[in-house]
């Protein structure tokens, strides 16, 4: 935000009132974030297909746009725009139309507190991390609404499973980030990233063994949180047809799709900022911070894709078992362990 407002004052001079500056800066940032989200969907759908393709001994899209089908997402987008917008007769129309936006906005709001580069953060909240987890838990509501409003049995199953899963996995997700908050002493995202400056050894992932474990747990929980990979309960295409978005077509479906890939990138960005040193490079001074951040996040996205295309899916009760009987105790252990570690090493007094 600071860099944006700085830019705006440079352009328009000092004549802008602080209020106008805030509003115009906020709007610019929101626009940028929306574009980032849209780009996420475009880039990562292509990437997902290519990664899946090469993992499976095939090419993936090759024909649209010359080199390895780079324009495939654009073609898909055009196709999806031309689709008929179907609302089932028996559907709860208001909820049906609202739910894609609930999910989408929940995901969009979380982007406000992601620090991409020094000064490039939409809202430098002191409660940054807490805020991200809070707003991203709007998604289960959207999924429930979609499933219920579709008036389709498969969609209802998907929604019930999805809501249960996402509510459960919020807990290990947030708990896994707590050791970092303890180490930093702040929930502010900028502060968390700043604390990791100066080489790879200062990143929280190698801070202590418990934080490494916490990172692994965060990674697993984040896959579950975005309903992918071995935890794609709400969709389960081989069981529930298409889960909660069975009845959605055209642009409404595209919003779900957009939100899914935006969330995928979002959790990777959080992991990058919280555990992997944000914009700090492996060694040396800060150089092209935005790019460094992006590379780290994309590597995490790639890992998530690798997991998704390798592992079979868990059953719904095993999913809950994994969450409550494995992940939650282990994350608690991480909190306790890293607390003791910090106390012993004298960081936490």
């Amino acid at each position, binding site marked *: 935000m600071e860099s944006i407002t700085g830019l705006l004052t440079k352009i328009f001079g000092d004549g802008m009132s602080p209020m106008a500056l805030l509003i115009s800066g906020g709007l610019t940032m929101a626009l940028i974030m929306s574009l980032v989200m849209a780009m996420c969907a475009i880039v990562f759908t292509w990437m997902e297909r290519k990664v899946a393709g090469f993992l499976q001994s095939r090419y993936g899209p090759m024909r649209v746009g010359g080199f390895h089908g780079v324009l495939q997402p654009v073609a898909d987008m055009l196709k999806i725009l031309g689709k008929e917008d179907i609302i089932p007769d028996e559907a709860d129309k208001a909820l049906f139309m609202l739910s894609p936006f609930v999910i989408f906005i929940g995901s969009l709001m979380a982007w406000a507190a992601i620090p991409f580069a020094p000064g490039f953060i939409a809202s430098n909240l002191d409660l940054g991390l807490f805020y991200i987890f809070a707003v991203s838990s709007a998604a289960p509501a959207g999924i429930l609404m979609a499933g219920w409003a579709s008036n389709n049995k498969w969609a209802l199953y998907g929604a019930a499973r999805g809501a249960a899963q996402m509510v459960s996995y919020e807990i290990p997700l947030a708990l896994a980030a707590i050791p970092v908050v303890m180490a930093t002493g702040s929930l502010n995202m900028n502060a968390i990233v700043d604390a990791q400056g100066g080489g790879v050894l200062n990143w929280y992932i190698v801070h202590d063994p418990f934080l490494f474990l916490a990172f692994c747990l965060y990674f697993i929980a984040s896959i579950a949180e975005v309903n992918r990979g071995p935890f*794609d309960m709400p969709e389960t295409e081989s069981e529930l047809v298409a889960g909660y978005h069975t009845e959605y077509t055209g642009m409404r479906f595209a919003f779900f799709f957009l939100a899914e890939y935006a969330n995928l990138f979002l959790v990777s960005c959080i992991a990058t900022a919280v555990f992997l040193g944000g914009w700090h490079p492996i060694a040396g001074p800060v150089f092209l911070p935005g790019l460094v951040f992006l590379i780290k996040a994309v590597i995490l996205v790639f890992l998530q894709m690798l997991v998704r295309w390798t592992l079979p*899916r868990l059953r719904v009760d095993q999913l809950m078992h994994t969450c409550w009987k494995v992940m939650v105790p282990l994350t608690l252990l991480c909190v306790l362990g890293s607390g003791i570690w910090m106390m012993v090493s004298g960081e936490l007094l």
Partner: protein
Amino acid sequence: MSDTTVTHGWEHQDKPRVQQSELLEINMGPQHPATHGVLRLLVKTDGEIVQSVTPYLGYLHRCAEKIAEGCDWRQWMVYTDRFDYLAPMNMNFGYAVAVENMLEVEVPERAQYIRVICAELQRIASHLIAIGTFGLDMGAWTPLLYCFREREEILNIFERLSGGRMLYNYFDIGGVRFDAYDDFAEEVLFMVHVMEQKIVEYNTLLTYNKIFIERTADVGVIDAETCYAYGCTGPVLRGAGVPFDCRRDDPYSIYDRFEFEIPYGQGEQGTVGDCWDRYIVRMREMSESCRIIRQAVDGMPEGDFMSPDLKKLVKVPAGSLYTRTESSKGEIGFHIIADGGSKPFRNKVRSPSYSNLHVIEKVGPGMMISDLVATVGSLDIVLGEIDR
């Protein structure tokens, strides 16, 4: 209608409210990704728990048995291709053996060996699909694509042999339609060599994956008694711990000349007869098929590939005979009734998937929806063969 009282719902307001819940009826299929074709399962569920399953069939019924009455004996071979379209060679084999038994005709040695090689390659191809789609039902996409990759290699051999990639119409009554091409033996041996390596890869990628074991072990347990009651055969019966295989226990063609094991479920990861056992039986059968193919390629003689003393238009002597052979799905039986003419009087097919599928009615209740999908996947049904 006159004496029925109209209820509005508020008459019972004063009475204590009775908690009522009803079962949710779901149609799984005919267009459902997990039903392997056009099967419709009427599932009644209580939340995630399945209370009853009823399979409804007939969406792929093509009257093949009735058509037989208008075809001559050779012509109907084309229709046997289309029963189990994932293992047409096995289907052809069953029908060819059945008619040859009626005719009491001697099939040349070379044809016998080519037939066995084809049938075993086809068994591998069919099991590859079974394993791949089972993995897909579990949510693992990649093994499916790897399985298809190896299957394509087998199909290439078949294409060179018969000209078709899916429906071969390669076996004929009294032999096979074309002789093996020049480097057939080398290609087959190379394929077997590749296959044996790939089985190791599948085992690492899928079989011994913890999530996969969790999803399949102790799930959909079908014991031997249930198998006998429902007439299950093939990997379902062997998965239940009964080492029964027509190839060994009721040998047809030249299977009595080969050495091979009958893999059967031992409950390594859970109970005997669970989904994992059925899966591993298929996996091990592929290795056994490789063994048979090696022996068959070694023993393949030169000579005729078609019985010389058969006329173009076959006339089967009057009578009836039931012949069973082992297809990749189980025991495929052809009950042939002939009236001495050039056309069958009645061809009755006993298809393995039909019997195997109906177990789902017995084992379905009480499991979760995900387990139902896993169990249907582990039965490896092909609807073309169920409905015919």
